[in-house]
């Protein structure tokens, strides 16, 4: 007795369905993996960017007021919630050269979603995708110094013992923002 050769339509349909299901699952898995890779990469990039930004900020604040020649350098010349300007006599020539790295400004702009570092006349974007950014100031007793939009006056700036940078970055492609806060001590000359 001869068995029928080939597959019946039902078998073919079933095989096709199972195949499609497997293919869909596989594609979904691969697509999910690819999405996770992209998200992970974007998050890692944002994390690195925020890390580099805070590190650069740390070194700028640490050297603020450096004054080998004893000319009395004011470490913080502008202290606003969105901008801080730091000065130092790095080469010890007795002059703070405003057109060089001896005057550094950090600017938070949430409208352009950018944190910038301005050296003299050169503006360098440090971080893009900024969704939250600001500077706050604390005195020697760790009490907050409320900086008005125009900035602290000279007496207020003289009390600054700590500068805090709060930064929130949105990774490209979405996802949970990267948040970093860094408080750096301003050297007092006492």
């Amino acid at each position, binding site marked *: 007795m001869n068995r029928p*050769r080939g597959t019946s339509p039902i078998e073919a349909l079933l095989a096709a369905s199972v195949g499609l299901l497997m293919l869909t699952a*596989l594609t979904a*898995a*691969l697509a999910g*993996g*690819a999405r*996770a*890779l992209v998200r*992970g*990469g974007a998050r*890692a990039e944002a*994390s*690195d960017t925020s*890390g580099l930004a805070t*590190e650069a900020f740390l*070194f700028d604040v*640490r*050297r*603020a*007021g*450096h*004054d*080998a*020649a*004893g*000319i009395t*350098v004011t*470490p913080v010349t502008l202290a606003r919630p969105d901008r801080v300007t730091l000065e*130092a006599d*790095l080469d*010890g*020539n*007795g002059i703070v050269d405003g057109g060089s790295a001896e005057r550094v400004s950090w600017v938070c702009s949430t409208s352009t979603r950018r944190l910038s570092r301005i050296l003299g006349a050169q503006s360098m974007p440090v971080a893009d995708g900024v969704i939250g950014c600001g500077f706050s100031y604390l005195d020697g007793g760790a009490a907050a110094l409320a900086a008005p939009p125009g900035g602290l006056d000279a007496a207020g700036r003289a009390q600054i013992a700590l500068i805090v940078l709060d930064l929130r970055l949105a990774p490209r492609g979405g996802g949970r923002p990267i948040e970093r806060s860094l408080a750096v001590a301003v*050297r007092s*000359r*006492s």
Partner: protein
Amino acid sequence: MNPLPHRAHRHRAERGFAVAAALLTLLVASTIGTTMAELGRLEAVLARQRKATAAALAAVDACAENAVASLPAGWEFTDVVVGSDGVAGTADDGVLSLASDCTGTAHAAPGAATPARVLLEVEATRGHGRRRLEAVVRRHAEPGVPSLLWIADGANVGRVTGALMLDGIDGAGAASPRSMLAAPADPEALDAWIAAQGATVVTTGGTGAPIWAVPPPLAAFVARAAAGGALAPGAGLTTAPPAVPHVTLSAGDLVVTSPRFGAGVLIVDGVLRVEAEFAFAGVVAATGGLRVEPSGVMSVQGVLWLGADSADTLAVDGSASVVASAGALAVADALLPLPRRATVASVRDF
């Protein structure tokens, strides 16, 4: 007709497609996996580097702070720049007391001589990280050390068999509480000395615990007072209050046998022996230490600095008290600039 070749051909084709599909899937999956692993590896490397940077930064800061803390108290930094031999251009110029994982030197700062300052260049290695910084070191704004007693020999503080009261709270000002005792010794050893005195040493609440400090520069202080035309004890101390602030210098031991009162700066180039009532507002310094005899009642509003030129730096068999007074200290500092600790004013990282 033989169906086998056709079926075999079909099966070969299906097998080929399945293998290709499987390989493609494997390729995509492994690419994703490898990229993720590489991303993770890179992040781990970056994290390690940041950790090494942070550790090295902390190490170089610690090096600089330790070096500065061990600089002698004083007025200028000439002794640091030219070394202990006092001669420029010799091997000990700018030599610093540093930990084993640090290297560094001190040299004169550029620019004007005042304010007194010195440049420290320090490098530290910690793990795989290395950092170097330049620190500008100045004299602290606060005279002396933040302590009521500043003693040159922490290993041989002395004894209290009478009563010693230490009050580090300045009732008149908002100054930070002063420590009870500062000396070049482990603070725990100083704690132990305080504890060993039992009830004879009384400290008021809020007075700070003992602290480590470099010795007071009493020899230089004596020289400065002498050069500044200090009064002799007979002229600088009075027999009844109120006392007018002066700089008073005793060229040898000073024995107070009858009530005496004074203010400003009193420097004894020898032992200060108190056998009667003695009250002083300001700085009392004695290169040979202090003896308060059983009949003596000594009260100081300000600070007491004692050298180690004799067996016991401090011997209190009578009654003595030291109460913090920023005002008295400011008056003394105006009369004769007081020595100050070194402090880091600013740093520059390389």
